[in-house]
């Protein structure tokens, strides 16, 4: 039996998302002359599709299917991402907000990187279980040599996603997933440290390439600085008058404040009326905070925490009998990391403690590609859950 609880939690999250897909983007719908049901209907269609995909995947036999799906997502995702800037696909990849991140097919926008991430998690799980789990390395050099090919893969991915899609967020996420999954192999802490330092250096270079990224990092550091106790702040004695909190973060915090503990009521929010851009996607939690308050945000995060708890429980309960079981275990952990990291980066982003935006809240934020990709990942976890001894 596949895990019922995951299915239930995901459905509840989607239901919450559906309510706010109706309530929040009203300003956008109004401005573009769309129907008030524009986002609701699309969200509903994707939710139903997602639930069907999850159910169908959960019925499959993992030993037969996981590998095929994983390789398919990885290879097709990679090929599409590579071809997007080339004349082969650029015709159907319009430049939106300065980057080609979406393919338009049959009136829908698909972000291939969302599916590619799931494929990559499978690839890491598959590869780690072959290369890094079986043997114990003796020297740092051996370990680094073993890890080097992955760095190549990550490097190529990063170049493509950062340069051609201008999406530092997704790249950072992929890197973080890689590092967190690496914890679950037998790589020594020393190697891990070396890699982390290398990654941080690369990242600082990446940040300084664009002035707006630097501004965001400054703004986030400023926000963290403000959280420090007063004596420590005085000790630093920074001149903070030049640091500016970005407009979106300000509006997001205004919305959270306006919501208070219990919110102004579903549909009554006013910061969603053009003040908070992307209120139905990146800043959905700020919109939810305004309408159902701190209590509502707490409930949403509780559901996500429960979902991750359940996924990690499956990972923990898989008994290692065959080589495949290692893949399943790592893959399941990878999916939990994916959901957890996206949530954390998003929530820290909306209160300005992390210099990032563009990552959705799983199943709550509007966005067909991310929802379908998450559903495929969850579906694969459900498929695997049949192997776990949950009781």
């Amino acid at each position, binding site marked *: 039996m596949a895990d019922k609880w995951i299915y239930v939690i995901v459905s509840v999250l989607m239901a919450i998302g559906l309510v706010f897909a109706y309530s929040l983007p009203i*300003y956008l719908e109004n401005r573009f002359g769309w129907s008030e049901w524009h986002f609701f209907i699309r969200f509903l269609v994707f939710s139903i599709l997602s639930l069907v995909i999850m159910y169908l995947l959960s019925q499959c036999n993992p030993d037969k299917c996981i590998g095929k799906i994983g390789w398919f997502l990885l290879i097709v995702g990679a090929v599409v991402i590579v071809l997007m800037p080339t004349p082969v696909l650029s015709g159907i990849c319009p430049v939106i907000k300065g980057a080609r991140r979406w393919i338009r097919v049959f009136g829908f926008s698909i972000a291939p990187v969302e599916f590619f991430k799931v494929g990559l998690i499978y690839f890491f799980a598959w590869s780690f279980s072959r290369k890094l789990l079986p043997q114990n390395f003796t020297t740092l050099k051996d370990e680094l040599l073993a890890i080097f090919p992955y760095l190549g893969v990550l490097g190529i991915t990063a170049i493509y996603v950062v340069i051609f899609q201008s999406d530092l967020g997704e790249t950072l996420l992929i890197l973080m997933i890689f590092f*967190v999954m690496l*914890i*679950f192999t037998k790589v020594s802490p020393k190697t891990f440290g070396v890699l982390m330092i290398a990654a941080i250096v690369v990242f600082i270079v990446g940040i300084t390439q664009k002035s707006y990224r630097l501004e965001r990092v400054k703004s986030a550091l400023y926000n963290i600085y403000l*959280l420090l106790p007063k004596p420590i702040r005085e000790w630093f004695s920074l001149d903070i*008058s030049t640091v*500016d*909190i970005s*407009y979106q973060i*300000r509006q997001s*915090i*205004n919305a*959270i*404040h*306006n*919501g*208070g*503990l219990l919110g102004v009521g579903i549909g*009554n929010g*006013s*910061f969603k*009326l*053009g*003040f908070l851009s992307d209120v139905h996607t990146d800043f959905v939690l700020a919109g939810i*905070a305004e309408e159902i*308050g*701190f209590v509502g*945000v*707490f409930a949403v*995060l509780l559901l996500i*925490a429960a979902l*991750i*708890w359940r996924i*990690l429980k499956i*990972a*923990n309960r898989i008994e*290692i009998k065959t080589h495949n079981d290692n893949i399943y*275990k790592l893959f399941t*952990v990878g999916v939990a*990391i994916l959901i*957890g990291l996206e949530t*954390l980066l998003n*929530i*820290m982003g909306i*209160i300005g*403690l992390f210099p990032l935006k563009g990552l959705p809240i799983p199943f709550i934020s509007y966005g067909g590609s991310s929802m379908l990709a998450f559903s495929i990942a969850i579906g694969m976890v459900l498929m695997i859950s049949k192997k776990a001894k949950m009781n």
Partner: protein
Amino acid sequence: MSDNQTHTLKIGILYALFLFVILIFLIRVLYISLHKPNYFTSTIISHTNLAIRGKIISHDNFVIAKNEKMYSVAVYPRYINPDKKELFINLLSIYSNTPRSTIKHLINTSKNRVILLKHIPYEIQKNLVYLSSVFAIKKVFLPTSKGIIYGLDIFEENSKRVTPFKDRLEPILGYMRNNQGMGLERYYNEILKPKQNGFIRGYRDVRNHIIYDNTVVIKPRIDGDDLRLNINLLLQGKIENMLDTLKTQLKAKEVLTVVMKSETGEVIAMASSNRYNPMHITQKDISHLKISHIQYTYEPGSVMKPITLSLLLKHHKVNIYEVLNAHNGVFYFKPRFTIYDDDSFKWLNVINAMIHSSNIVFAQLGLRLTPKEFREGLLEFGFNQKSQIDLPYEYKGLIFSPKEFLSEIHRASNSFGYGLRVNLIQLLKAYNVFNNNGIMIDPKIVSKYANTPLMHTTKRILSAANAQTVLNILRQVVLKGTGVAANIDGLFIAGKTGTAKISKNGKYIKGLYNSSFIGFANDDTHKYTIATLVIQPDKKHFFASQTAVVGFRNIVNIMLDMGLLKRHLTQ
């Protein structure tokens, strides 16, 4: 530790880390929801839409007075991007049609809020609203530390009263300023004045559109009601031009006239030679502010004779064919009280006494009335009381007290129009009785406001037969007597002249006269009562036939030209 146990431990630590970050987030959200950020800007806004004063519209649909909304533009010079300052000055100068130097000077005077432009009409305000969006695109204004952008602040001033026809219909139209005023503007101030400013408060979207949900507060804007006049502005204008010429020709102090429809009391023209432009009242206009039609009272002289006659007819104390002694023009009535006529006759019947305007005959006739009959008769004809015309601050004039009426000298003087003070509208209203079958009607300038027609109260004060008798005699005055100059072929013209000496400090001053003509101009379908008064014409032509009658005649000619009167060709 087995692999599995390490694995479980790693998962546990990872999950604990996850929960820890979530906890930080929740604490931060809790803090934000309870503490207002210093850059918090409310999404509630309010707008006020100032209500305006009602319009005044003539009978021929000209807007004589209206309010125009005016706007001011303010700016915080300290938020103007120094690199875009030239652009700001140039564009604002072009869009508002203001010299560059003015704008440049003003934004350099202060860093704080400066009012750059005042009294901007609506058309330019629209352009400036567009310009402020251009400024937003060009980033002409720097944001504050709270991220708020103070751009062009275009706000509504109190609206301005505009009279497109300048001094037309003044001083009747009047003005209103700081609760003080004159004319129609003052009289109908309660009707005209704005009732309620529009107000709206509610949540807004980012473009400042108000959201009409159940929390929005709306008070509708209620403007003042419009006044619709009986005044025919074309006629009014032509008459005013004619009066200006007449005033210059006669070197008079002022020339006044009123044209009223006899059957309805609708005043279709009411003009003075002494006018002013209410938009620019200057020192020299102060004497022109007064509405002489109701605020100048004078001894009317011979124009009172028809009133005396009608009182005699009413009390059956005269036969119009009876002959009285005219004393050859000089009548030693009482010691130190001699009455003179301009033309001397031995005997005159009542009709001829009117035609030749014999003071001597009318003095004798007047004494036939008892003091009570005479005084109450004058009161009934509307003297010594307000004429009920819709204008403020009317002077009601003066008649002798009941005790003074016991004096024969007083009664004899009253008979030919001395010893009492009246205003021109009172005379117009009294005379109108003869042209309206004995029925008195209140004159009104306004026809309606707020879709309510004005009521004219009517009262019969003379039998139709007596009214007709007087009218016929007044017709004779125009055909044969002092009013000959008024006659126009093809129309029924009747009326009475009056040339009255002006008294100052109880003494009549030689060479100072008021000259009036109150008359009627009727065709088959229209009846008009027209009053004309020339105040102090020069000594060469003081007789009414050379002054007021000319004014009357000119008016009737203008009305013929405009088709307000039509000649009866077969007459």
